[in-house]
């Protein structure tokens, strides 16, 4: 088990390194010249070269990646110019570890940008996750246990309909009717816990989280239903019945235990994917999260911010993968003891 976890961790670190190199390479190969962009419209070749040097864009690919990687661990200065440090220290921005780059566009370190926006995305993701896991798995289990009945067909039908609606449509619908027309809740505006307390925070998240959860929930209802039905037809469930176990023991101890394992995996990965920001939901509700930051950075070719975001997001997915693998080993003795 310990050896297994260590193996997974090492693989994860390797994956992170490779992923960051690939991300770098992608942006390096991009047709947009970031120095040109930063330098502005009336840019002479000399000015451009100077800008490139001050931003570190004149180095070769691996040197640039090396600086980035080093910055993650020890931080770095922008521009990294020892002379300037003495003559005009006020023009140097220090980016403390973990440094993911510096955005000239936003005159801020990428780490700071992420620090400001991530709580919003994380909040939406956590609350949405709670909705969709509780709702999706519960309804999926109910549909499977009531297979073929009106309840089952109703749930499956409803989930299909909801799955078909685009997220922005559901978000706009909720915003228009629940918040604006019927006034059931105030028009949502992100409120941190520090400001509004748990209730203020939660109620500000209600509509965005529901919007996001609906889509996932619809998928999870059908997925859970399929897994539970499959596991109900397993030989070991028949054995459990043949022993004379009561129905609830057969269902909960034997069938559900096995059915929920793949759901844990899916849920972990889906959650990690959401950590990078629910772009559509954040846009609909105008919430200042990572997704919105990514859209904005994309619009004004803010490469450092984009690179930082992509690497952050990919890291979440890789870390979630490791956690899920470890969870799998905890749940399934065949993985743990082989």
């Amino acid at each position: 088990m310990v050896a297994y976890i260590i193996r997974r961790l090492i693989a994860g670190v390797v994956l992170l390194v490779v992923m960051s190199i690939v991300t770098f390479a992608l942006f390096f190969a991009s047709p947009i010249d970031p120095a040109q962009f930063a330098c502005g419209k009336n840019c002479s070749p000399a000015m451009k070269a100077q800008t490139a040097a001050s931003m570190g864009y004149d180095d070769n690919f691996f040197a640039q990646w090396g600086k980035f990687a080093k910055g993650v661990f020890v931080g770095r200065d922008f521009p990294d110019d020892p002379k300037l440090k003495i003559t005009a220290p006020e023009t140097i921005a220090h980016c403390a570890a973990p440094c993911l780059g510096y955005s000239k566009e936003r005159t801020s370190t990428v780490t700071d940008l992420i620090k400001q926006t991530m709580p919003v995305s994380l909040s939406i993701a956590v609350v949405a996750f709670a909705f969709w896991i509780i709702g999706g798995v519960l309804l999926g289990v109910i549909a499977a246990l009531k297979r073929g009945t009106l309840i089952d067909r109703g749930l499956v039908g409803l989930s299909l309909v909801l799955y078909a609606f685009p997220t922005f449509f559901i978000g706009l619908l909720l915003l228009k009717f629940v918040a604006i027309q019927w006034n059931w809740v105030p028009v949502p505006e992100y409120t941190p816990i520090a400001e509004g307390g748990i209730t203020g925070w939660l109620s500000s998240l209600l509509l965005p989280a529901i919007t996001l959860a609906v889509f996932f929930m619809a998928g999870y209802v059908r997925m859970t239903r399929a897994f539970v039905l499959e596991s109900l037809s397993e030989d070991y469930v028949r054995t459990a019945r043949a022993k004379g176990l009561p129905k609830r023991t057969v269902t909960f101890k034997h069938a559900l235990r096995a059915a929920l394992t793949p759901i844990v995996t899916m849920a972990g990965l889906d959650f990690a994917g959401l950590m990078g920001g629910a772009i559509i939901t954040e846009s609909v509700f105008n919430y200042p999260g990572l997704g919105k930051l990514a859209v904005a950075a994309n619009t004004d070719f803010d490469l450092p911010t984009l690179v930082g975001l992509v690497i952050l997001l990919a890291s979440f997915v890789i870390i979630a993968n490791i956690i899920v693998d470890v969870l799998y080993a905890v749940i399934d003795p065949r993985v743990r003891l082989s």
Partner: protein
Amino acid sequence: MTDMHSNDGPYLSVEDLVVHFPTADGIVKATDGLSFTLGRGKTIGVVGESGSGKSVSSSAILGLHRGSSAQVSGRIVLGGTDLLMLSDEEMRLRRGKEVSMIFQDPLSAMHPYYTVGNQIAEAYLVHNDVSKKAARARTLEMLERVGIPQPDRRIDDYPHQFSGGMRQRAMIAMGLINDPGLIIADEPTTALDVTVQAQILDLLQDLQREFNSAIIIITHDLGVVAEMADDVLVMYAGRAVEYGPTKDVLTHPQMPYTWGLLSSVPDVQGDTNAALIPIPGNPPSLLNPPTGCAFHPRCVHRSKVPADLCTTTLPELLPGSQGPGHTKRCHLADPDELYRTEILPEIMPDLIVED
């Protein structure tokens, strides 16, 4: 053991058992009028190719079709009680206690996430009001009894850590922990290699003698029947086609399907002269079984029956030449003669000791 045995009649009596599955394509007639009896301490072998309805029929005895769309009718009288008349809860309380089942593939029949000991103890705890500790002690005792070496160490292993043979022993321990009067073993050795097969069959026989339980052993191997069973019931397309004392059926088989099974027995006695002739063709669909005798599309002897009887009329299960205890479902007028002159010389009598 609670003795619910009524003095008149056999311990188990299955009468006209029908199990039909309504499906989108029509009704699957998996069991269609099956009757047999079984005394305490006796063994009946149910043989037939895969898909002939053996598992469906035996699952009906355990009430495993309850809660599904299956239509079950007839009578299953066990120790004087008709199991089909019981409520679901009454049936559940008998499952694993009075009737238990040992399944074909012990790897898939055991839950991969729970230890072997946990799963066996669970079978004991559900029917006995005892502490977990007592259940564990009883589990250890059973594991020891079925021949698991170092049971105190293996009890906390997971099924995948056991070998195939050990898993089947553990399944047997699970099935016998409540000392049931009736054990149904559904192809208990099919998934195992030959040497282990023999050990498991020996173990079952030992335990049967010790507990005086009745056994239904399901198999497609007449060799297993020859070794284990007092009576044999040959099933084809959901019906009994031949039924009688094992020795009688194996020495004087009365109908072509049984002949076919005999021809396809691998040499149990190690007699390499035995020819292995599989029955040509495939078992019929139980959705649209053939008219008349269900075996007729594969039967090479049907031309010996006059007036297309084989394709038009379902033969009844009637006594043949061997007395009232040995019945067969076939129109052939003199099967004994046919068997002696045509079949026997071909298959070499490796199972048949005398003629």
